[in-house]
């Protein structure tokens, strides 16, 4: 995994530099105009968050049932990365909505459940920090709960009536909008993998330090 870090970092850097150029060349949307271009990094940030949640939930399941410290470190890292990308989605969304809908925020099902998902993973971080002994298991349960909620966040626009655009927008994108969109998705996914690797490495070093303390006390 360490060998893959360099190429992934270079590729992610190149793609993230190229993304604004692709977005600038993409056509304007007929009703929303320029502000619709926020879509090219608003939706990829949610995709990256959902992927990080998938990793966090999977690793949490492994840790909860097999008591695997490595899986716990991955779950902790993925939970933190999920919060980061969720924050990007929650900030870029209102910036888009202010122009498109005339309001920064609307307490409709989609937006509210997305906010709750973000708060779920923030609570996971707080549980780990202040939960004391056994907090890793509690945080794993929070991670699994977050994973279970995620499909509802994605499908909220199809289940409830909301002002948010529907999920059918992405599959029906014309090629001129689809190419920059999927390019941005790939760039955000690479960025997510990169941040996850860096954060897992931090967890590894923290575990090594804990072992050193234990050895020192013995």
């Amino acid at each position, binding site marked *: 995994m360490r060998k893959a870090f360099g190429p992934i970092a270079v590729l992610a850097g190149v793609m993230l530099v190229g993304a604004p150029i692709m977005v600038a060349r993409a056509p304007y949307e007929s009703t929303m105009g*320029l*502000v619709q271009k*926020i879509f090219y990094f608003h939706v990829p940030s949610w995709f990256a968050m959902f992927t990080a949640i998938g990793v966090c939930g999977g690793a949490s399941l492994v840790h909860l049932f097999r008591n695997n410290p490595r899986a716990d470190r991955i779950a902790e890292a993925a939970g933190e990365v999920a919060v980061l990308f969720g924050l990007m989605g929650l900030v870029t969304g209102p*910036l888009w909505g202010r122009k498109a809908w005339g309001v920064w925020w609307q307490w409709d099902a989609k937006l509210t459940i997305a906010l709750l998902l973000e708060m779920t993973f923030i609570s996971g971080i707080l549980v780990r920090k202040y939960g004391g002994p056994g907090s890793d298991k509690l945080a794993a349960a929070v991670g699994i709960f977050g994973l279970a909620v995620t499909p509802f966040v994605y499908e909220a626009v199809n289940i409830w009536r909301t002002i948010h655009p529907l999920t059918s927008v992405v599959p029906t994108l014309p090629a001129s909008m689809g190419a920059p969109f999927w390019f941005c998705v790939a760039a955000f996914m690479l960025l997510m993998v990169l941040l996850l690797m860096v954060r897992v490495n931090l967890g590894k070093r923290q575990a090594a330090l804990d072992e050193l303390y234990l050895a*020192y006390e013995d």
Partner: protein
Amino acid sequence: MRLGRLLIALTSFVLVSLPAFALQPPTGQSEFVPVESLPPGDQLPAAPLLVTAYAFVWIAVVVYLWSIWRRLNKVEDEMRALAQKAPRR
């Protein structure tokens, strides 16, 4: 004497009230006329919102990387301190 006082009071009242009349605001709008769309000058510009959104993404990534780097440095410092303590025991 009484007439003199009355005249002074009246003159003072007139002198004080004159500026108040002179400073009256212009007449208010008498009717509202509806239009279908905002004039271009009043519309919210999209570019600052787009730039803010993109800048936020980058700032969030940089701040997060900085926080990891800071935590990693703290861990490495503690490891070094422990390694220095260990041989003395």
